[in-house]
């Protein structure tokens, strides 16, 4: 039951133990931490509950005047502050890792904006709810845990202290039952042994009971003090958006550089050649002809470079005929023979098609540059709601996402559309890269 929250400790208990887990539990450090959590829970809950009930009702009562709003905001701010402590307590004693909730989004500076943001934030109210819900639960779990624990140990150790009854109370032992006519005392060795055994059962059961109780605490902390699922998704999307913006900016820089170093430089050389040729035309027609010849060569190379550049931005055939057709040209530019198999029932949306195209394009460039392969193959197919791409080669292997920015950049791009990149490339090869994209048709 507690395994989900106990993962932080799992590795510690991997050591070999002579005692079975059931007998070990009462004296385990983990059990003590959990018990400590429950013990601390009650006083903390009282403080938190009192705080929230007092301040929120005060704030609500004052809402008719303007004063209510700052009081309520302060109440919620306090709850958020307590949340930090509670998360730390859960982390330290239960091993429950809960991320901080979404931070306050204050649109503009100023106390008024801050108060508005505090009151509008769902996380603040969830924190307040936590202080209210956790109080009855803390009372309940404190009572149960403390009762079980004390009863258990008291009964278990009964053989050691039953003598206090005859010595000081004038009775044989614990009075199990008594009325005017007769009483039952736990005083003979059999009864004492049974009492101790019952105590043993309680003692052994208590850690598991406490674990069950703290599991609920873990759920409370996780559910009410952590980031909401929506906000977690927002954080993920924000980072994805960052990646997209970064790659877009990097692409623009690359295009600018390519234009500057390539076509633009060639056109300057061309203008120069033609200018010289114009001057030489009269006096040295032969030299002029040679320069025109050179200029002709320059302009053809410039055309080639511009074509490659434009194609790198977006291949027209991808829009017109889809992936299968567009990948032909990509495959033909690879330095090794490439087998291309595209098996799609329909065309995905242009965005997904574009990312798939550039993924294959980049992976084949890697094959050309680094793999030392003799052949390569590209497979594209659809698997339920995913578009699958596989590029494999029989080269030297050793490709790694963590090394080499190419694959890492590709992984980031795929990540931005909820895609996945898996690289299987043992040293010595072969290499297999699988990319998975969401299917949007």
């Amino acid at each position, binding site marked *: 039951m507690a395994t989900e929250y106990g993962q932080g400790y799992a590795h510690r208990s991997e050591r070999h133990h002579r005692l079975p887990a059931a007998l070990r539990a009462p004296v385990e450090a983990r059990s003590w931490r959990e018990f400590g959590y429950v013990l601390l829970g009650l006083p903390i809950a009282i403080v938190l509950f009192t705080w929230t009930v007092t301040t929120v009702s005060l704030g609500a009562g004052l809402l008719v005047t303007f004063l209510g709003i700052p009081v309520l905001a302060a109440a919620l701010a306090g709850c958020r502050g307590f949340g930090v402590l509670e998360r730390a307590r859960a982390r330290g004693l239960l091993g429950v890792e809960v991320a901080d909730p979404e931070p306050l989004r204050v649109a503009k500076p100023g106390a008024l904006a801050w108060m508005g943001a505090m009151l509008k934030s769902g996380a603040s109210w969830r924190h307040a709810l936590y202080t209210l819900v956790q109080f009855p639960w803390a009372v309940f779990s404190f009572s149960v845990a403390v009762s079980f624990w004390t009863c258990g140990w008291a009964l278990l150790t009964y053989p050691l202290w039953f003598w206090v009854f005859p010595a000081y109370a004038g009775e044989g032992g614990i009075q199990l039952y008594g009325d005017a006519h007769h009483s039952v005392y736990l005083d003979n060795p059999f009864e004492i042994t049974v009492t101790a055994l019952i105590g043993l059962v309680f003692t052994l059961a208590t850690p598991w009971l406490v674990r069950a109780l703290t599991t609920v605490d873990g759920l409370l902390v996780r559910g009410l003090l952590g980031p909401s699922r929506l906000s977690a998704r927002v954080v993920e999307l924000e980072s994805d958006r960052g990646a997209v913006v970064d790659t877009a900016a990097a692409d623009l820089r690359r295009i600018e550089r390519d234009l500057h170093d390539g076509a633009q430089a060639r056109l300057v050389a061309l203008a120069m050649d033609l200018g010289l040729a114009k001057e030489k035309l009269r006096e040295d027609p032969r030299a002029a002809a040679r320069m025109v010849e050179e200029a*002709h060569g320059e*302009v*053809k190379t410039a*055309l*080639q470079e511009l*074509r490659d550049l*434009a*194609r790198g931005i977006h*291949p*027209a*055939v991808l*829009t*017109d*005929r889809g992936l*299968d*057709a*567009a990948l*032909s*040209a990509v*495959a*033909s530019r*690879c330095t090794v*023979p*490439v*087998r*291309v198999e595209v098996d799609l029932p329909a065309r995905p949306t242009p965005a997904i098609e574009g990312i798939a195209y550039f993924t294959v394009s980049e992976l084949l460039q890697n094959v050309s540059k680094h793999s030392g392969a003799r*052949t390569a193959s590209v497979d594209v197919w659809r698997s339920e709601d995913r578009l699958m791409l596989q590029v494999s080669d029989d080269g030297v292997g050793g490709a790694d996402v963590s090394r080499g920015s190419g694959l890492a950049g590709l992984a980031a791009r795929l990540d931005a559309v909820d895609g996945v990149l898996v690289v299987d490339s043992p040293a010595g090869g072969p290499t297999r890269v699988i990319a998975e994209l969401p299917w949007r048709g």
Partner: protein
Amino acid sequence: MPWGDREIVEDRVRVVIAEDSVLLREGLTRLLTDRGHEVVAGVGDADALVKTIAELADQGELPDVVVADVRMPPTHTDEGVRAAVLLRRQHPGLGVLVLSQYVEERYATELLAGSSRGVGYLLKDRVADVREFVDAVVRVAEGGTALDPEVVAQLLGRSRKQDVLTGLTPREREVLGLMAEGRTNSAIARQLVVSDGAVEKHVSNIFLKLGLAPSDGDHRRVLAVLTYLNS
């Protein structure tokens, strides 16, 4: 990169040009008339091209060849290819040379579907080599084939017959590529600076290795090679 047959350059052909960029249309017209050919009409989009050809055919003045750009109004995608395929079906004797900013194996396959007679598919850049471009226009006008080396490279790369293709010597692969571009033996010999006899030997070796029946006509030979690569 020469890919023309010098022998037929003197023939005067009648051309219709479809190209939406006025600059390029004028340039092509100047280039062709300068070489003694006749530009019958110049149009700016695919619909106008099909209409013009229909009118000319009605008057019994079907041109020898159409030179068409792939991307034209209204959608700027593949109008040129579709018009070319349509015209080839309507007028089997009409040569069609498609020019494009990029060449794509897929468009080539669509253009060549059925027959490689009088088909050309070239990168626009090739107009820079005036003589070879005009040679290609003439070749297509006379029922020959002119495929861009880049298209051929894609066809070779995409072919499922890689195991057989790797069995060819580098020289034979070169000859196969030039054949697929639509060149005659003598043009291949000139390009590779070898004798005609040497080329013939390579060609027969290639046909043997690919398991194709030897074929005399140049355009039928191109078709055989392309069909083989695409199958």
